[in-house]
């Protein structure tokens, strides 16, 4: 026992000594399933300016803490600093959060680990102490499913930097670097516009680079939007987010403030994932045309008028004109024409009801399906363009087809055709919304579904009316001139109108999917024209073959997505050198618009999803050197590779000084072999 005692005493002496030495410095605490540490970026406090400290929070598996706006539930961490006189603490720099879903609630916070950094500023006139004590009292809420509040008092003592020397980075500096990469940045080169509507706030963003990926707006205020409502975003040249407003009064709100997070990133390299939005809110000025609120019968009336006006809109008129022609031809057989028209009206009504039903269901599911939404799908646009083109060719007399008019087979085929032409009429009418329609339809979507259906029915009735009138008052058909040679002229004129519509649709397609899609479309139309000419001449098999060929081409075009995956940057020697210096693989495509081989290679290989995927995986920096106008810089670059013509494909493997030249005719296998093995 005597021998143990001295050891014990020694141990206790040691222990207390250590306690004294460590003193009240407690830089780390574990509470509420979170390990919190007060850390500094530098080893010493600089003698002037600011330096960064922060609370490093490391959560247990499954636990999370909250962002400055916790969302539907939770509590953001709070800081209380005790500093030496003259020192002041700035605001917490919050990295962008993630959305935490616990249906039906959505919160915003951080899982695993987060550093909440704060800048401390050193007093200007200097101070006496050689060590700087920093104390932080913090409280936070950590939740997994259940929530636990946490509290800690942390302190940190740093020496003052030696005069004349810059303090070095501490061991924890890397956390600050990582946190900085997740701080939202001010928007540059991005135009933003936000509008305050009765039930929602819209945010329109026009960045210089469009990327694929999820987008989410995190507001700074916790009472602004319904956090669980989907933030519908459309993407065709710009992003439009529609944020459902929470049930609070914000009509005096001046600005929309928050961060906009993009999974794919906002900058060229995709590193910057969040930007700060501070957009002044434009209030929607109520239009003079629609008195608010719009009563339902007034809306129905407007819808009816709007439907009638649709008949003369460029989308519909050519198709209507086909119906008129049909009617003129059928004038003799009244009973059948009557049934025909009846089914045509039925076709219109059924399609309007289906559209109304679909819109209501989609709206309930939370998508902002505004009227005309079908035209947002490039495939739909292409399909309609093909259909109208076929009609135009028919009108020009390139071929005949018994789609509508069938003298031989009575009843069913004709009636079915009438029904479907009614359906087609509705589809085509959708984007041409006449002035009345916007408010009536917007109103319809906000009303209980019964009223909405009534409004859609009025719309359909208005659209169908002219033809029905012609039917009910046969005298009016007598107003229509008798068949004669003038019909051929009329047919041709209508054909030109249809071609105009096709032109417009192709321009829409171009805006949606780019030049490549337009080229593909034109090829398909050409092939179809040839096929129909064959049919018209009685050469069924040849026609069918060409038609199948065009369908295959069209299908393949549909399946391979447009190249918004690889970012092809304009060639510049400096950018290439920079990319190589960063150790990234580089691929250069020397091409020209007049070079057929180049275009074929691009269409079939370089823009294919397989190559896209490969480039993305390997982080290949893709450059396009466009020699269409014989740019001398590019001629020089070509000469450097001992070439004087295009195409030329150059690949630099990461970290290598030698280039690999690919052959003039590319296949995916070639690209894969060269890019694949590094």
């Amino acid at each position, binding site marked *: 026992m005597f021998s143990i005692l001295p050891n014990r005493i020694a141990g206790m002496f040691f222990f207390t000594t250590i306690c004294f030495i460590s003193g009240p410095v407690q830089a780390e605490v574990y509470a509420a399933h979170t390990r919190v540490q007060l850390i500094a970026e530098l080893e010493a406090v600089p003698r002037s300016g600011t330096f960064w400290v922060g609370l490093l929070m490391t959560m247990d598996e499954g636990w999370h803490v909250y962002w400055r706006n916790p969302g539907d539930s939770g*509590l953001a961490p709070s800081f209380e600093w005790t500093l030496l006189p003259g020192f002041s603490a700035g605001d917490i720099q919050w990295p962008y959060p993630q959305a935490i879903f616990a249906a039906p609630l959505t919160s915003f916070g951080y899982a695993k680990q987060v550093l909440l950094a704060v800048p401390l500023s050193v007093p200007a006139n200097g101070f006496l102490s050689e060590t700087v004590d920093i104390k932080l009292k913090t409280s936070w809420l950590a939740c997994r499913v259940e929530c636990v509040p946490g509290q800690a008092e942390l302190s940190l003592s740093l020496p003052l930097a030696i005069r004349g020397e810059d303090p070095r980075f501490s061991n924890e500096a890397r956390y600050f670097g990582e946190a900085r990469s997740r701080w939202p940045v001010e928007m540059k080169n991005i135009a933003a516009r936000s509008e305050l509507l009765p039930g929602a706030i819209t945010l329109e963003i026009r960045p210089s680079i469009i990327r694929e990926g999820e987008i989410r707006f995190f507001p700074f205020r916790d009472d602004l939007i319904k956090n669980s409502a989907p933030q519908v975003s459309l993407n065709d040249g710009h992003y439009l987010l529609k944020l459902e407003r929470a049930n609070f009064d914000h009509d005096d709100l001046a600005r929309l403030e928050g961060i906009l997070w993009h999974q794919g990133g906002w900058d060229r390299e995709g590193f910057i994932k969040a930007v700060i939005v501070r957009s002044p809110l434009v209030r929607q000025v109520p239009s003079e045309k629609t008195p608010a609120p719009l009563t339902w019968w007034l809306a129905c009336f407007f819808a009816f008028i709007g439907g009638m006006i649709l008949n003369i809109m460029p989308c519909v008129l050519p198709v209507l004109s086909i119906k008129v022609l049909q009617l003129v031809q059928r004038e003799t057989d009244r009973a059948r024409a009557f049934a025909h028209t009846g089914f045509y009206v039925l076709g219109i009504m059924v399609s309007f009801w289906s559209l109304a039903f679909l819109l209501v*269901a989609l709206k*309930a599911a939370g998508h902002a399906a505004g009227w005309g939404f079908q035209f947002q799908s490039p495939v739909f646009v292409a399909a309609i363009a093909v259909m109208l083109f076929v009609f135009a060719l028919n009108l020009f007399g390139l071929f005949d087809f018994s789609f509508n008019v069938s003298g031989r087979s009575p009843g069913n085929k004709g009636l079915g055709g009438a029904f479907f032409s009614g359906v087609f009429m509705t589809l085509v009418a959708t984007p041409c919304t006449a002035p009345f329609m916007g408010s009536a339809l917007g109103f319809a979507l906000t009303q209980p579904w019964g009223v909405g259906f009534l409004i859609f029915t009025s719309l359909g009735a208005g659209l169908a009316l002219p033809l029905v009138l012609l039917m009910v008052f046969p005298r009016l058909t007598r107003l229509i001139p008798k068949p004669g040679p003038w019909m051929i002229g009329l047919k041709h004129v209508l054909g030109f109108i249809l071609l105009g519509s096709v032109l417009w649709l192709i321009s829409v397609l171009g805006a949606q999917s780019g030049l490549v899609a337009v080229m593909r479309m034109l090829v398909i139309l050409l092939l179809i024209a040839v096929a129909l000419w064959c049919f018209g001449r009685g050469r069924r098999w040849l026609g069918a073959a060409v038609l199948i060929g065009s369908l295959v081409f069209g299908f393949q075009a549909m399946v391979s997505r447009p190249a918004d995956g690889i970012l092809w940057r304009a060639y510049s020697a400096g950018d290439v050198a920079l990319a190589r210096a960063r150790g990234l693989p580089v691929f250069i495509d020397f091409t020209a618009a007049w070079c057929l081989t180049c275009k074929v290679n691009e269409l079939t290989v370089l823009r294919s999803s397989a190559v896209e995927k490969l480039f993305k995986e390997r982080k290949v920096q893709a450059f396009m050197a466009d020699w269409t106008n014989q740019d001398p810089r590019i001629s020089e670059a070509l000469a450097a590779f001992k070439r004087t013509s295009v195409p030329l494909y150059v690949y630099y493997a990461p970290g290598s000084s030698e280039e690999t030249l690919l052959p003039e005719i590319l296949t995916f296998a070639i690209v894969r072999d060269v890019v694949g093995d590094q």
Partner: protein
Amino acid sequence: MVKKMLVVLLGILVLAAGSASAQVVTGEAAPDFTLTDTKGVAHRLSGLKGRVVLLEWSNPDCPFVKKFYASKSIQQWQADYVSRGVVWLSINSSAAGKQGYYSPAELDGILVAAGFAGTAALLDPDGKVGRLYGAQTTPHIYVIDAQQKLVYQGAIDSKASVDAADIATATNYAAAALDAVLAGKPVTVQATKSYGCSVKY
């Protein structure tokens, strides 16, 4: 083709049903509901017409709720307003197996021990009424006037914290709404963002 479309439509409708979120607007009629309390008695909101009603979404295990109950502040308010004729209903919307879920007898025991002085404690384990009202947190308060109109929804008070010391210095929105309604005056603060733990649906 038609079959495919029907399936898609059906899917959309199912989605719609699932994501339906409540739209209780202050100033409009409070949605009716019937729930059973911890003693087995059923309570129907429409049967309380003529009385001022306060709904308090609660979860005995949530630190924010504990702040009010441990400091005995909320029990005082309950006793005070119940004596003035208010029907104070606490509602527990925790789903089975989630935090805060208790059987009626268990919850009754907990509340008696805590000194609950409200009119009754209702159980909503399938979360129907919670979703109907859009209750997001515990606590979340709804004040309904004698004509069954919703006059206030949101937080109990203005300081979102778990620290009981903040109760004394915070503005009590629930009490202000009750006072206004009982005096026949309009409620000034009609809606605030509630704070607390999430309701464990």
